[in-house]
C-alpha cells in the first residue's frame, strides 16, 4: 500500500477498484486458507493411497499397518496416558539439551564472530568436533556419565551447539561493512554497535541456527533414547520394535514429526515477527 502511495506521489490511490469491505475480507481469508490447504495436499494424498492399498491387502500388516490401525493405536496410547508421559520426558530432555547447547553455541558464535584472534584460537578445534557423529560420541558419554539423564542431555547439547555456533558466527561476519562506517560516523559506543547493528543484522542467521539446532536436538534425543533408556518416545519405539508392534513404532515416529514441526513453527512465528523489515524474495507466485 505504501508503495502505491510513493509511486503516485503521496496520493492514496487504491490498487484495485473499490470492493465492499466484507467481500475483500472474505477473499483474503479464502486465500490464506488455500495457502494452508496446499501444504496438506501431498500428505493427505499419500495417506489415502496407503489406506486403500492396505484395505485391498496389498501391504504386509506387520511391516506396514494401515493409517487407520496406526490411528487406533495412537488413540489407545493417548487414553492410557502412556504417550503423554513419554512425550513429556522426551520434550524435557530435548528442551534442556537445546537450551544448554544452544546458548553455549550462541555465546561462542558471538565471541568468535567478534574477535579474529578467538577465531584463530578455537574455530579449527570446534570445526573438528562438529563433524563427529552422535553415534561415535554416545558410547563415550555413556562410559563417562552412565545411562542417566546427564549423558542424554549432553548428547543433545553437543548436537544443538554447532548449528547455532556456525550460523551466529557467519551472521556477525556478514554484517555490511558500509553500515559499520555509518556507526562510526554516528559515534556508536561498543554496546550500541552490538545492540543496534551487529545483533539485528545477524538475527536472520541466528534464527536459522535456532531452527537447525532444534532439529538436531530431536535427532540427538532419538539417538540418546535408542542407546538405552526406560522412558521417552525413543524408548517407546525401541521397545515396540523388539515386540514387532509396528503400529506403536509408527505412532512414535509420527509424534516426533509433529513435535518437530510444532517447535519449528514456534521459532518461525517469532522469526516472522522480528524480521518483518527484511526485503527478500518470497517466491514468484506469492499473493
Amino acid at each position, binding site marked *: 500500500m505504501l508503495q502505491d502511495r510513493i509511486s503516485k506521489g503521496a496520493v492514496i490511490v487504491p490498487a484495485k477498484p473499490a470492493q465492499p469491505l466484507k467481500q475483500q475480507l472474505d477473499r483474503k481469508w479464502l486465500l490464506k486458507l488455500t495457502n494452508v490447504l496446499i501444504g496438506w495436499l501431498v500428505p493427505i494424498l499419500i495417506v489415502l493411497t496407503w489406506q486403500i492399498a492396505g484395505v485391498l491387502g496389498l501391504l504386509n500388516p506387520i511391516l506396514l499397518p494401515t493409517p487407520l490401525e496406526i490411528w487406533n493405536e495412537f488413540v489407545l496410547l493417548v487414553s492410557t496416558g502412556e504417550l503423554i508421559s513419554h512425550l513429556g520426558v522426551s520434550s524435557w530432555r530435548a528442551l534442556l539439551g537445546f537450551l544448554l547447547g544452544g546458548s553455549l553455541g550462541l555465546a561462542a558464535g558471538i565471541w568468535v564472530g567478534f574477535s579474529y584472534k578467538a577465531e584463530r584460537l578455537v574455530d579449527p578445534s570446534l570445526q573438528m568436533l562438529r563433524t563427529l557423529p552422535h553415534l561415535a560420541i554416545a558410547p563415550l558419554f555413556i562410559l563417562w556419565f552412565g545411562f542417566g539423564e546427564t549423558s542424554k542431555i549432553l548428547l543433545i547439547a553437543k548436537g544443538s551447539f554447532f548449528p547455532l555456533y556456525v550460523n551466529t558466527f557467519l551472521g556477525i561476519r556478514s554484517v555490511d561493512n*558500509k*553500515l559499520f*562506517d555509518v556507526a562510526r560516523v554516528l*559515534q556508536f559506543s561498543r554496546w550500541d554497535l552490538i545492540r*543496534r547493528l551487529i545483533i*539485528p543484522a545477524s538475527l536472520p542467521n541466528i534464527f536459522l541456527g535456532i531452527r537447525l539446532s532444534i532439529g538436531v536436538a530431536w535427532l540427538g534425543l532419538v539417538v540418546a533414547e535408542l542407546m538405552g533408556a526406560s522412558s521417552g518416545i525413543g524408548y517407546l519405539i525401541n521397545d515396540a520394535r523388539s515386540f514387532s508392534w509396528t503400529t506403536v513404532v509408527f505412532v512414535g515416529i509420527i509424534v516426533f514429526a509433529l513435535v518437530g514441526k510444532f517447535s519449528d513453527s514456534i521459532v518461525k512465528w517469532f522469526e516472522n515477527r522480528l524480521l518483518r523489515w527484511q526485503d527478500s524474495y518470497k517466491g514468484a507466485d506469492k499473493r
Partner: protein
Amino acid sequence: MSADTLIIEQVNRVFQTPAGKVTALKGIDLRVRKGEFITLIGPSGCGKSTLLKIVAGLDTSYEGSVLLNDKPISGPSIEKGFIFQEPRLFPWLTVEKNIAGNLSLKHKDVRKKVEEYIALVRLEGFEKAYPRELSGGMAQRVAIARALLRNPDVLLLDEPFGALDAFTRSHMQEVLLDIWQNNRTTMLFVTHDLDEAVFLGERVVIMNPRPGHIRSIQPIDLPFPRKRTSSSFQELRTKVLREFEKVEEPEFDTGAGI
C-alpha cells in the same frame, strides 16, 4: 579563533598498492568559512572522495593538517555529518528510528527533534515505514535528517544524489538548499555533475587527478534560488567547464602517449 570552520593545509595522501606508491592527494589547501556551501568537482580518481573521507575522520593516514574549529581531526564524530552515495539506512529500523539512531525516542527532546527533522526533509506520514518501502530519494532524505539531527559543524556529502534519476535529483538539490538556508550548516559537497556543482556551490573547487590536487576555485556569485536557464548561470557553467576541460586534457595526453 579564526573565521574559518575548516582549514585544510598541505594535505598529502599516499596509498600503498602492490604496484607501488600512488599519490592520491598532493598539497591540498582549502579554507571553508562557517556556513559556506562548497562543491568539489573533478574527474574520477582526482581524490575528491578521499579528501572528504579525511575530513570525516574515516581516513587518518594522511600528511598535513586538517583543523575543524581549530582542532585537529582524530576520527569520525557527530560534528562531521556524512552522507554517503547510498542512503545506508539500517534496514531493520523504521524511518524515525533510523533518524534517532543510538538516541532513544523515549526521550521527549529526541522525539521532538526527530519530528522536526522529518518535517524538514518532508517525510511526514512515513515515520513508521521501513527503508525497503522508500524510494531512493526518500531514503537519502532520511540519511540527511539523520546527519542533521546531530547538529554537525560541517555536513560532508559524497555524491549523495549520484544514484538518483534527473527529476528526483533536481528536487533533492532544492531540498538541500532549503535546509542549508534554514540551518546554515557548512556544506562540503562532492559531485561529478557540473550543473549540480554550479547550482549548489558558493564556491566550486575544481580538482585535477594524478596526483589529486586543486586546480582552481571558482566563486559562483549568483543569488539563491538560482535559475539554470539564466544567462549568468550558463556563463559561469561554461567558465567552470573550461577549467574542467583543462583538467581533462592532460588525461587525454597521457592516454595518447601510451
